[in-house]
C-alpha cells in the first residue's frame, strides 16, 4: 500500500505544493503544512476507493487540512511582509516585469478569505464549476456567485496596480 501511495504522491505532489503556497507565506510554516497534508493523505488513503479522481481526492484532503490548519500563534508579529517570497523560484535571470506580476498575484491572494483561496486554487487549476462545487460542498450556482465576488475583489486590487 505504501508503494502505491508513494507513486500517487510522486505523481501529484504539485497539488500539495500549490495548496501550501496558496495558504502560507512563511517557508517554515509551509513545510509544516506540507507534512501535515502528507500525513492526512496517508491516514485517509486506506479509505480512498477511487470513487473520485485521485486529484479531486487530494485537493479535498489538502484543502480540508489547510483550512483547519491548527497553528499556535507565533510570538513574533504576524505582519504580512509582501517583500517575502511566497513562491521559491528557481535560479533564473532576474525579470523585473515577471517579479512585479508575482508581487501582484501575491497581493491579490492576501486579500482572499480561506474559503475564497480554496475556490481560487481550484479555479486556477482549471477545475470546472462542477468539480469546485463537489470539493467545496456548495452548489455550482454558489460557486459562480463566489467567483464573481472574487473577480470583483481582484479587479479592485489589479486596477490599483
Amino acid at each position: 500500500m505504501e508503494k502505491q501511495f508513494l507513486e500517487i504522491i510522486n505523481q501529484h505532489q504539485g497539488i500539495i505544493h500549490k495548496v501550501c503556497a496558496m495558504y502560507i507565506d512563511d517557508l517554515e510554516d509551509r513545510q509544516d503544512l506540507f507534512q501535515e497534508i502528507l500525513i492526512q493523505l496517508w491516514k485517509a488513503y486506506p479509505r480512498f476507493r477511487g470513487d473520485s479522481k485521485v486529484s479531486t481526492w487530494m485537493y479535498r484532503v489538502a484543502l480540508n487540512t489547510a483550512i483547519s490548519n491548527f497553528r499556535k500563534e507565533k510570538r513574533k508579529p504576524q505582519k504580512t511582509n509582501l517583500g517575502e517570497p511566497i513562491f521559491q523560484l528557481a535560479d533564473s535571470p532576474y525579470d523585473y516585469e515577471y517579479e512585479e506580476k508575482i508581487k501582484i498575484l501575491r497581493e491579490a491572494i492576501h486579500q482572499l478569505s480561506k474559503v475564497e483561496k480554496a475556490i481560487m486554487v481550484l479555479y486556477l487549476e482549471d477545475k470546472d464549476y462542477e468539480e469546485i462545487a463537489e470539493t467545496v460542498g456548495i452548489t455550482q450556482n454558489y460557486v459562480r456567485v463566489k467567483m464573481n465576488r472574487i473577480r470583483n475583489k481582484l479587479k479592485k486590487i489589479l486596477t490599483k496596480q
Partner: protein
Amino acid sequence: MELENLKSIWKDISKQEEQVSRLDSEEITSLLKGKTQNAFSKIKRNLLFEVGSLLLATIVFLGLIISQHVPSKIPLVISISVVFVLSAVYYIAKYYQLSRINIQADNLKNGLKTLINTLEKFLKMYFIGSMALTPASTLTGFIYGYNLNKQSDDWLSEMDFVIWSVAFITVFLLTLTMYPFMRWYLHKLYGSYVQELKYCLTELEEEG
C-alpha cells in the same frame, strides 16, 4: 491585468515551485513518520493525558489508603476510585470516537461542520469534567489530608462543624476560581480557532 493573466502566472510559478521543492520517495517516507499537529490529534493527546493522570491518581490514592488499614475509609476510597475510573473510561471512549472521524476526505463544508461540532462537544465535555472533578478531588484531598494521621474508625465523625465549613468554603472558592480560569484556558487553547472555523462555515452557508 485580468484574472486569466493571473492564471498563467500562477501556472508558471507553480511549475517552478514544484521543481524547486519536489521531494523524492525517501523524503516523503521520512515526513510521514512525523507527528500530526491537527486539532483532533491534539485533543486525542489531551484525552490520553487526562486518562493517564486519572489512573495514576487512582493508583496513588488507593495505595495510600490501603497502606493505612482503616476499614471505615474504604467506602470513600471506592467512591472516589469509581468516579476517577469512570471518567477515564469515558475519556477513552471519546478517544476512540475521535479516531473514527475522518473529515479530511469529505467536502470542505461537511468537514468544517464535523470539526466545529466535535470541537464544541469536546470543549463542553472538558469544561464540565474539570468543573466536576475539581470540587470532588479537592474535598477528598481535604478530608484525607485532615485525617492523615488518624487511625480510628470514627475519623469522619471527628470532623466538627468548623472543619466541614472550612472544607466546603475552600472547595467553593477553588471551584469559583476555576470557573473563569477554565473558560480563559479553553478559549486560549481553541477559542479563536473555533471562531475562525465558524467564520469559514458561515461563508460557505451564505448561499441559503
